């Protein structure tokens, strides 16, 4: 069962992505960093309808926030009634509170696949290169042609060996910065002080944790995180603007700017 799932994963996610990555490498001047950027953009475009849904649902939730807070005040003493009224409010505006999560859950395999394929194609060790041979579409003539001319891919880019961590710590800093900004933009003032402080902690912890990972993983993956983060920020900007940056994610109860959440990233 697990083996079959793994095979299915390989066939429908990993193999197409790996071959696409090799194709992009050859189209984008035999530059692996550009290929990573290209594939990230491509996948952002393909998953855009889902992302838009997610962001819009988030925006509606944000817009409903003042009403929610009013409800919270009104039914402070009666939790059951509060839940009931909240659900009613959501229904009226056609919002499914879990709806923001669903598109994200659908996208997740795609992002994990992208991540794995970058790792796989880098092929720094003989084992990795050998594994790569099993994913290439040898029977598709033009892909075979590209693969035979380009593999092993050149993994140098500027000062980086894309298979190794950044020796100058520039990428970890960029990763922290993009993650922080994205968190910040999607952060929300919460009526619940406990949740607000949780949100606050998360918005600092998560960028730091990814920054920490970046110290250890191949810089190709770090480039993917940065590019993906920047694209996420751009998409978010078009839906919610910079609003999240101007408001402090603390318990206020006042009706200021955008509300509700959305967690970052893959």
């Amino acid at each position, binding site marked *: 069962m697990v083996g079959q799932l793994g095979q299915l994963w390989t066939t429908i996610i990993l193999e197409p992505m790996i071959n696409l990555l090799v194709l992009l490498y050859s189209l984008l001047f035999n530059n692996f960093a550009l290929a990573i950027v290209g594939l990230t953009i491509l996948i952002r475009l393909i998953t855009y309808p889902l992302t838009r849904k997610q962001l819009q649902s988030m925006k509606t939730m944000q817009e409903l926030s003042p009403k929610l807070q009013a409800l919270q005040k009104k039914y402070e003493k009666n939790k059951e009634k509060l839940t009931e009224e909240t659900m009613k409010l959501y229904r009226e505006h056609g919002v499914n509170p879990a709806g923001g999560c669903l598109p994200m859950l659908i996208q997740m395999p795609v992002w*994990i696949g992208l991540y794995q394929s970058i*790792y796989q194609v880098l092929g720094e*060790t003989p084992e990795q290169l050998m594994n790569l041979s099993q994913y290439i579409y040898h029977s598709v003539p033009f892909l075979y042609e590209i693969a035979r001319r380009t593999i092993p891919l050149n993994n140098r880019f500027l000062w980086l060996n894309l298979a190794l961590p950044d020796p100058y710590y520039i990428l970890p800093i960029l990763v922290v910065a993009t993650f922080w900004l994205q968190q910040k933009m999607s952060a929300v003032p919460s009526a619940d002080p406990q949740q607000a402080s*949780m949100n606050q902690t998360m918005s600092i912890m998560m960028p730091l944790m990814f920054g920490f990972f970046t110290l*250890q993983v191949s810089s190709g993956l770090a480039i993917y995180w940065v590019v993906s983060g920047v694209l996420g920020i751009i998409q978010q900007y078009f839906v919610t603007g910079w609003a999240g940056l101007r408001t402090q994610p603390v318990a206020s109860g006042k009706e200021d700017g955008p509300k509700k959440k959305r*967690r970052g990233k893959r």
Partner: protein
Amino acid sequence: MLKAKIALLFTLLILISGCARQAPASGWSGPIVSGDTLYVGSPGGRVYALDALTGQKRWETKIVEEKSTTGLYSSPIVGEGLVYLGTFEGKVVALDAEKGQIRWEFETGGAVVATPLLGGDTFVYVTSSDHKVYALRAQDGSKVWEFETGGRIWGGEALGGGLLYIGSLDGRLYALDEESGEKVWEFQAGGAIASTPRLAQGVLYFGSLDNKVYALDADSGEKIWEFQAQNWVWSQPLVSGDRVYFGSLDHKMYALDREGNEVWEFETGGAIRSSPLLAQGLLIFGSGDGHLYALDRERGKEIWRFPQEESLAAIYSRPSVAQETLYFSSYGGQVYALRIEDGSPLWEFELDKEG
């Protein structure tokens, strides 16, 4: 909701940290037998000397940095009382064959993946991921010459007629003067070359990542023929009588005639990087499916496989043979001794077990 978010985030972090680890580099060093001693490199970066009859350990020496997590790809070679092999950290090391002390080390600028080659008792030739091939003095490791290609070199050398042949991941096969390291000719293949070439009766055979095996005139570098498999050919071809045998990452072992026509093929369940060897009329090789196969060399029919049931870890290195016994190691560092005629096990030894 928030709890769910946090749980999801942590799942993600675990997933990411799980698949973001440094690439595996356990190596696939294979055994070699000299006299009554078997030498092999381990995933933990140690060289082992075992009693070939019983599998008892004689000595072990760690030849990589204390903190290193990379194993050895290079199989040992033995000559004049020394054991030579390269490390993924970039060194070539010569050890005393009797006691295991390190006699000399030579630092290249990149990972050494291939097995070194001895030129008589005088030279040891080494290829490296720093794009270079080095000729070192076998007794003290001093450099005689070096030659730089356009890419990493993961394959070993072939030597004959005063020429040293090496393939590079830059896709070219180079013929160098063995004394001076001057290039005599080069041949551009259709893909990177990771395979060690084989020289037989004036013809050079090697595989490439364009899925092909090439046969070149060893003097001039002119192509005589090429044969296309369905995936990369990383294994070193074996030439015997009128046959050329080689494995491909398309999971198959091929037998060609000397004109490059296919005689038979045999399909296994995994990629074949292991180079075959012939013993008692059997063609023996390992596969990524975790089996060692013995085929009838004429017809490509399976005579036996080891193990019969189940399977081991992948077998990527070349087996080795001495007297009536066959030796091989599986990925992760298990060494086996089998009887050649029926593949029945004699002993096994787990590398890196103690400390």
